[in-house]
């Protein structure tokens, strides 16, 4: 890298202040700090406070003690965490592999209509969760009957069940809807990564006799691993912040029987309240803080352990 200024700290000669750096940074830092960071800090700070005798008071880690110590809070929290992990695992096992597969298909050389396929497959990602939730509820509705009707067409009607309404299947069903919606993102990123593999490497593999599946597994997959890593971490952050879709499809109580409750819905319910339940800012902030720590831990794990081992290849 050739910065004009990297010697700034060793040169004793006084150099003019580089005001332009401030000018470049300032708008972003101001807007971001004022509108995002300060309010978030304010929220996280709340986790150390609670109402004592009607007055907000500093309570230290008492809120955390309640969250993990009180059996009901703890039960709700662990239930949400486990569901969230399942939610994440399903995304990793369904959304990302399918995204990779679609990208691999799209990158087949000299294929016609790629732009159309790409746009079509990306379309769900563009949709508001309001739309997605509503459409899928209709499709999976036993009453409206699109799903059962279609299963009937192929003689599999007996397979149909009110998936969204059964505790055993609701979480899976919602996860799959979410996969459907967001598959465009891994697809696009992997597609891009695949396109950036130099053609000559692929041709060298062709000459080496590594074709078809073997080529995908042995050459392409290792080369797009960094992209898969990025996608995994984006999925992780996204899943642990998720809330909208479950909220629209299953309601704030994440039914049936809390089987689709994830951290996001738990947080929302706690923080803002729901129906007769009043919002509890302090406990909400406590959950938010724990979520933040979980996400931070995941991201750090990725950055410091996984990404370190993964190279970005120079071609």
């Amino acid at each position, binding site marked *: 890298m050739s910065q004009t200024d990297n010697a700034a700290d060793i040169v004793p000669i006084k150099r003019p202040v580089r005001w332009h750096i401030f000018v470049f940074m300032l708008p972003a830092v101001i807007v971001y700090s004022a509108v995002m960071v300060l309010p978030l800090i304010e929220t996280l700070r709340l986790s150390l406070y609670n109402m004592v005798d009607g007055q907000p008071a500093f309570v230290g880690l008492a809120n955390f003690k309640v969250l993990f110590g009180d059996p*009901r*809070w703890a039960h709700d929290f662990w239930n949400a965490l486990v569901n969230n992990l399942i939610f994440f695992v399903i995304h990793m096992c369904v959304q990302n592999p399918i995204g990779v597969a679609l990208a691999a298909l799209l990158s087949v050389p000299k294929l016609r209509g790629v732009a159309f396929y790409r746009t079509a497959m990306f379309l769900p990602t563009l949709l508001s969760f309001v739309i997605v939730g509503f459409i899928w*509820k209709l499709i*999976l*509705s*036993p*009453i*409206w009957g699109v799903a*059962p009707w279609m299963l009937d067409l192929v003689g599999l009607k007996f397979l*149909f*069940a*009110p*998936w*969204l*309404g*059964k*505790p055993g299947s609701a979480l899976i069903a919602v996860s799959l809807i979410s996969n459907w919606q967001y598959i465009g993102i891994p697809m696009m990123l992997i597609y891009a990564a695949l396109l950036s593999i130099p053609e000559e490497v692929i041709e060298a593999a062709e000459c080496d006799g590594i074709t078809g599946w073997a080529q995908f597994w042995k050459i392409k997959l290792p080369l797009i691993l960094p992209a898969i890593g990025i996608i995994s971490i984006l999925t992780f952050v996204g899943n642990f912040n998720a809330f909208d879709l479950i*909220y629209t499809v299953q*309601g*704030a*109580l994440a*039914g*049936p*029987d*809390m089987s689709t409750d994830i951290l996001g819905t738990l947080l*929302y319910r706690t923080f*803002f*309240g*729901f*129906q*007769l*339940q*009043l*919002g*509890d800012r302090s*406990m909400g902030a406590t959950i938010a803080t724990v979520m933040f720590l979980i996400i931070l831990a995941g991201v750090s794990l990725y950055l410091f352990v996984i990404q370190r081992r993964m190279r970005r290849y120079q071609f």
Partner: protein
Amino acid sequence: ADVTLTVESWRNDDLQIWQEKIIPAFEAKNPGIKIVFSPTAPTEYNASLNAKLDAGSAGDIITCRPFDASLELFNKKQLVDITSLPGMENFSPVAKAAWSTDDGKSTFCVPMASVIHGFIYNKDAFDKLGISIPKTEDEFFAALDKIKADGTYIPLAMGTKDLWEAATMGYQNIGPNYWKGEEGREALIAGKQKLTDADWVKPYEELAKWKPYLGDGFEAQTYSDSQNLFTLGRAAIYPAGSWEISLFNTQAQFKMGAFPPPVPKAGDTGYISDHPDIGVALNAKSKHAEEAKKFLSWVASPEFADIYANSLPGFFSLNSNPVKMSDPLAQEFVSWRGPYKSTVRSTYQILSRGKPNLENETWVESANVINGTDTPAVAAEKLQKGLDSWYKPAK
């Protein structure tokens, strides 16, 4: 310049009625005051209202949920005490109870309407199958059996997907007959009864028996699915709240009737859930408190009661001055007020103040009972345990 008052509400369905009937009526009488009705989707109403109140950006007039949700706002001094507002004398203490402090001394919302639970049925279907209105539990199930045997109609249009249907239209609908309305409810609050008592478990046992009569895949059937099933004529009986009336009137192509929750045995006293559901209050931060009070007084007037109850059949005025309603179905509902004893929903007052929230738990458990996930006994036990964990009734 004109003063503009903004009304916060979750009733986005009523937008048209406000714009076309209520607001013009008020503005005609009160030149210089403009009203803007600004509804939010019901699912987001509480969260967004609380945030706006905390930040001080909420509208002048706040539509009140009944009981604790609004009481909390009052306690946080976000709503103004309107006990002595002109017009409040038009409401009985019972009507005001949902928006008064526990001791009944201060009132902070003008009661607007209550809703009554019962069952709406497809008259054509009943006629065709030769079913008469069931008065007792046995008759009710006999009717259901008959409909089921015939096969043309789904006997009961209800789903458990949205949870609250099971609790509100199921448990709270038939429950008062078993726990004897206010008597049981007050005993529960006083700690003299428990949710595990037979009176409270019995409704769950009844509810559990509904399962065979629900439509295919009722577990994933949403509230609007149920409404559509019924209004499209595919279901015979709809466990209802009176608020459905206007919508059903516009959508159903057949004749409808209504009956109150059947009593356990012939001759038993009947109870109905006549639940105060909606009121309006004055935001303490309003810059136009005087004008807003004028508006609230008007809401408390018989004039408003008349407009409101007739534009929204099924929302029954709480005003002491009787309102003449033209809708037959609405008349049917309101006619139960005499012979049946009114009560409010059991979980709304006091009992949902803590964590876990009894109302939310009731949603979950009612659905669980119908789905067969939990037995009635287990469900009741869970609820009581949750309640015990924070509620210490004054002895």
